[in-house]
């Protein structure tokens, strides 16, 4: 195509886009959007706290540092992964945002792993049975579904050019938030098999969100939207 013909093509496209122009509502900053999502997680945690024995939970968490460190790690992972997902759903943000949840995720994994190595049992807890571990898996996955859906409804308002990283961090945020909420329904001490069950649940959630999220987020191939 010759240069003048190309210019005509661009002019025709500009005319079409200008003709389609409608006022748009500017997207809220990623921090506020992440905060809104986390407020929903907090509300669920509040309802769960009302329905469970808070003293037993406090006793269990305070008995050993690794117990509360794991919860702090998963909570921070959920917050920072959600924040990085909202950053990555903007078309101009650096892919390095995906690294943000890694430090708390390491803390979460390390503290959970340390719990498995601990020989002493915490008073009032018992080792998990196979049924408990299956329940953990189901709870994490079941909680992740509404949290992921909410996250994707919010992420769809952006326009990501890095859908892979966006869905990956969104999946991590949902899985970490579910793992945090799990502590309300987790009346037993951590073991290696329990950690594996949690790990499998998180991997399933992240993989599902990564797979289905690519279909939910706006396509990378363009078509004009008014």
């Amino acid at each position, binding site marked *: 195509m010759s240069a003048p013909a190309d210019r005509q093509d661009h002019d025709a496209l500009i005319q079409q*886009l200008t003709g389609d122009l409608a006022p*748009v509502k500017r997207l809220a900053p990623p921090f506020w959007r992440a905060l809104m999502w986390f407020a929903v997680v907090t509300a669920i945690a509040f309802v769960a706290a009302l329905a469970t024995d808070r003293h037993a939970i406090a006793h269990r968490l305070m008995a050993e540092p690794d117990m509360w460190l794991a919860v702090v790690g998963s909570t921070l992972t959920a917050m920072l992964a959600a924040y990085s997902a909202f950053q990555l759903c903007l078309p101009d943000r650096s892919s390095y945002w995906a690294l943000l949840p890694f430090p708390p995720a390491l803390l979460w994994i390390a503290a959970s792993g340390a719990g498995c190595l601990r020989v002493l049992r915490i008073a009032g807890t018992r080792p998990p049975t196979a049924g408990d571990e299956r329940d953990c898996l189901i709870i994490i996955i079941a909680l992740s579904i509404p949290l992921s859906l909410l996250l994707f409804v919010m992420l769809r308002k952006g*326009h990501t050019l890095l859908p892979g990283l966006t869905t990956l961090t969104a999946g991590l945020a949902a899985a970490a938030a579910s793992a945090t909420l799990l502590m309300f329904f987790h009346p037993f001490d951590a073991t290696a098999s329990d950690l594996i069950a949690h790990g499998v649940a998180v991997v399933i959630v992240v993989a599902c969100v990564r797979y289905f999220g690519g279909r939910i987020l706006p396509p990378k191939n363009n078509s004009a939207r008014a």
Partner: protein
Amino acid sequence: MTYVSTFCQGGPATLNYGLIGGCIGAPDGSTAVWPERRVADDSSDARLSALMASAQAGDRAAYAALLRECVPVIRRVAMRRAPADRIDDVVQDVLLTLHNARHTYDPSRSFRAWLSVISDRRAIDLMRRVVRDHSREIHAPLHYEQHPDLDADPAAPQERTETAKQVRQAVETLPQRQREAVQHVVLSERSLKETSAITGQSEGSIKVSLHRALRALRLKIEREPQ
């Protein structure tokens, strides 16, 4: 001024003008930015940012002016990533992306940085698509020419034309009610109800006329073989 440092990576003897920013390669490989050009860049960026803010509010004139100013910037970014024959594809793709992502732009940030990152990512995406398509498709025009379709009948289009002419002539010889039934129901694919409204005949009468017309046409065409 992060965008200036981003674009001043061209190495020695690199000189960029206009929207890209003013920087010149020093003999030792370092780059320097002319102060007066930096001021001009800042005001130009602020102007583009203001145009985009107006476009977000639905100002078509501002939007058209903005997109026209974006074209040379996109071209310059695309030239680093794509071959010459693909640059205009990148430009069109980026213009569509800007349109679809315009609500994600925050006027407190640099417009040129926003545009440059989007242009760069879209150019990379396009080139990945091109490479993927090339790996799946075979371009062999001679091979295609040397393998004709053995089932193809060169006389078929001519025969179809003659048959259509014969049918048209046969329809013209039908009585008026039958002719109307064929024209509306068969040739124009109208419903019996619509045909009834147009011709004033009852639906039952149209059915009878159509049945008689088709029988008459069949006999007429069988009697006059091609």
